[in-house]
């Protein structure tokens, strides 16, 4: 196991039973009941929390589902290496602009359409030319030139400039390849019953209840990092939407589900005794506070730095999550991301004295009767808008309340605004007038996510995902150079410099890692979490007696 893999898998949870990737043997040893006799067939019932609007799309909640029935060109293994999947092999031209993928032969979508280079090309056109997937666009729109089928098994992707993290990006389920025949049915059918070449086929989606997948009996083309080749061991996968944490965990203890997502943190230690549990720290942007650098008190660097020192972020994360979810000090990239810079994580330890000094220096020297700082008659007021029950679990909200109380000690008046999903997604709280601080995350297997979250927002080239409104040409240049670096080492060095710059500028403050946790019944083996962004994989899973 490489160092990175160790970091990614936690080690953060003493005693957690690991079941992932190359760790099968270790997982089995750790299960006290022993291995048991493998069975074929059966139905896995899985309890997930959120239900997305479509089974396919550019949102992580959709990626969890699409991973079950769509295959990608490549896969990322637990060591972060890219391994073959639908593409057997690939090469890149010397100028790094032309990528040629050799596709596996004999692959068919579940509707019978052959998976050839034209089908792949059609998907790229759908994503990028027809803007069928905003997340693919966020990664590739600025780099994509054209795609074409050279012959049935040779697919060629042309870029306008080199893009080092291309393969990592492609390994995500957002980039799963769909049947062009099915795509042509239009958005409604495609939303409800998308068609891929994956190990499972969408049989039925009962909204508000769940999705039933059936085994694809012809499946012979799992990714190279799968535990076995051939069709799934189980016949069916029933994906239930169990939003209520009590019901979700209760369904596992009562045996109605075999696997659940997002183990409630109060149940975590007990779940470790009763089930096989697994925690995955999502790479990409961690749950972090974007500070508004163009409007309000945070336009002053000293005030941003004071805010960073004023709260015991690590302590509040630990208490709110019972120590289950790790603190992440680096606000731009999380610890499991390739190219993560640990130096950017400890720039702002809890230091109220330093916070007070910085605020004094910034001119916020007076206090009003409520104990808040005042400058020129204006109170030091911070509006923090967060997605309640959607981006933030109740534990996350508790964490923010802890923080609110701590920063009050040095004179910050924080107003927490819990916003609904509709308000947030409709842009009610977008734009520099809407907030002083806004917490969010973005799952991604590459530090290239910085291009999405920190590229400048300019009139001629807007970037609305820059939620700190922090425009810095020097930073953008570092990120752009990293994205096009010739080697991984060079890219990591540049990404690291970008992270340190963001940290020096206190444009964002790290809170905690976005984390996937699974609890799996003892009689179900080989459920694993894939590496690019933490989707559960059921293709290899089997029951034992």
């Amino acid at each position, binding site marked *: 196991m490489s160092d990175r893999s160790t970091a990614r898998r936690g080690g953060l949870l003493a005693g957690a039973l690991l079941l992932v990737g190359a760790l099968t043997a270790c997982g089995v040893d750790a299960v006290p009941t022993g291995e048991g006799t493998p069975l074929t067939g059966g139905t896995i019932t899985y*309890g997930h929390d959120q*239900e*997305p*609007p*479509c089974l396919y*799309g*550019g*949102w*992580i*909640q*959709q990626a969890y589902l699409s991973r079950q029935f769509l295959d990608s060109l490549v896969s990322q293994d637990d060591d972060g290496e890219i391994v073959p999947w639908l593409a057997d092999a690939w090469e890149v031209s010397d100028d790094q602009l032309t990528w040629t993928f050799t596709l596996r032969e004999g692959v068919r979508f579940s509707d019978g359409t052959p998976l050839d280079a034209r089908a792949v090309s059609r998907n790229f056109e759908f994503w990028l030319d027809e*803007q069928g*997937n*905003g*997340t693919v666009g*966020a990664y590739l729109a600025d780099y994509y030139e054209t795609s074409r089928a050279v012959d049935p098994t040779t697919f060629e992707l042309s870029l306008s400039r080199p893009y080092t993290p291309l393969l990592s990006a492609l390994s995500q389920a957002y980039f799963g390849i769909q049947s062009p025949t099915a795509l042509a049915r239009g*958005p*409604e059918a495609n*939303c*409800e019953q998308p068609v891929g070449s994956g190990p499972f086929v969408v049989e039925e989606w*009962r*909204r*508000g*209840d769940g999705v039933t997948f059936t085994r694809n009996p012809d499946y012979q083309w799992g990714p190279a990092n799968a535990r076995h080749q051939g069709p799934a061991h189980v016949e069916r996968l029933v994906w*239930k*939407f*169990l*939003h*209520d944490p*009590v*019901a979700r965990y*209760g*369904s596992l*203890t*009562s045996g*109605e*589900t075999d696997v659940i997502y997002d183990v409630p943190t109060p149940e975590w230690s007990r779940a470790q005794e009763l089930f096989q549990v697994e925690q995955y720290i999502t790479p990409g942007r961690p749950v972090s506070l974007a500070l508004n650098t163009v409007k309000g008190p945070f336009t002053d660097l000293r005030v941003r730095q004071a805010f960073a020192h004023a709260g015991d972020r690590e302590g509040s994360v630990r208490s709110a999550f019972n120590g289950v979810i790790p603190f992440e000090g680096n606000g731009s990239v999380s610890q499991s991301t390739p190219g993560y810079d640990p130096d950017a994580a400890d720039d702002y330890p809890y230091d109220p004295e330093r916070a007070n000094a910085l605020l004094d220096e910034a001119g916020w020297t007076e206090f009003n009767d409520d104990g808040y700082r005042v400058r020129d008659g204006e109170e030091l007021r911070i509006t923090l808008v967060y*997605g309640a029950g*959607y981006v933030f679990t109740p534990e996350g909200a508790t964490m923010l309340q802890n923080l609110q109380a701590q920063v009050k000690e040095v004179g910050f008046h924080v107003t927490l605004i819990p916003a*609904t*999903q*509709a*308000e*947030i*997604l*409709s*842009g*009610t*709280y*977008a*734009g520099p007038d809407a907030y002083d601080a806004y917490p*969010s995350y973005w799952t991604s297997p590459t530090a290239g996510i910085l291009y999405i979250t920190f590229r400048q927002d300019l009139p001629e080239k*807007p970037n*609305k*995902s820059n*939620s700190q409104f922090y425009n810095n040409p020097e930073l953008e240049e570092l990120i752009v150079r990293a994205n096009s670096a010739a080697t991984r080492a060079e890219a990591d060095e540049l990404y690291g410099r970008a992270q340190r710059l963001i940290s020096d500028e206190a444009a964002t403050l790290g809170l905690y890692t976005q984390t996937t946790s699974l609890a799996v019944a003892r009689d179900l083996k080989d459920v694993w979490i894939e590496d690019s962004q933490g989707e559960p994989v059921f293709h290899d899973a089997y029951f034992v007696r």
Partner: protein
Amino acid sequence: MSAILRPPEAAPAPATPPASKAPPRPTGRRLGTIATTALSALGVLWAAATVTFLAQVLMPGDRATLLLNLSTGQTVERTPEELAPINERFGFDEPLPAQYLEYLRGLAGGDLGTSYQQLKPVTEVISDQLAPTLLLTCGALLVAWLLALGLILLTARRGRARSALGSGFEALAASLPHYWLGVILLVVFAVELRWFPVVGGSGPAALALPVLTLAVPLAGFLGQVTRDEFERTLDQPFVVSARARGVGDLAVRVRHVLRHSVLPALTLSGWALGALFSGAVLVERVFSRPGLGQVLLNAVNARDVPVVAGVVMVVALVYVVANLLVDLAYTLIDPRIGER
């Protein structure tokens, strides 16, 4: 929505037994009543439609942005070029009055529009999910009545302690919040005792706890209203005379007293059925049941205006129909009302 679900003014138990104040109505007046009822029902539906439309449209934020962001999980502002096709497709670029008229025109023709989120007709979205919710709410109403009546027959005027126990239970039950009760029932009877499944879905066993969650508070409420009336009726001269004729205690209670004392609670039931729908939103969430409540919740989250409006229309319709049925039941239970 709550405005239309509030109990009618007539709901509180009348000071005198209702039997004594229902004058016989001539046929012409009866027809007039029906026309008035139909008109007011239409009025309720129109108001529900309008309020829903305005509430959804006038909320801050942009619908087209929401739809784009919903499909990517992003929370960003969008460029006019990105928004234009969506605005055109759903008619968001039309002036509001035009959108409103178009919406009403559709409603009049039974067309609830197309879901922004699911891209299919709202009537289909609703009809797919109507049955589980109707089963839940009607089951809850039935069970609530059984609980309330059983408790009254067993405790009302049967000794100070028993009577106090009964009315105390009613007061407690009526004040239980659905969410809290649901979670408690779930933890105790499904997770710990495992008498019932944790995950809802189909089957009578899976229906038990959700129905109880809705029924217990309602039973307390119906019981409170009925108990007062029940105890008053026990003092009526006709009860004394029935007893004098040698009718047994239980028979007096069931055949004579109950018949008079359920009328206020019956009035409330029309309202209660509407209110149960809003309770269903939470209950379906807690017990992971499909149904209109979940549809409504998801649609509100996604600001899927046609679906929200459609669900509200269905609830309003149920409310209207339930109240008509209540009127009908009145005449069956107490033939002196609306006779001839």
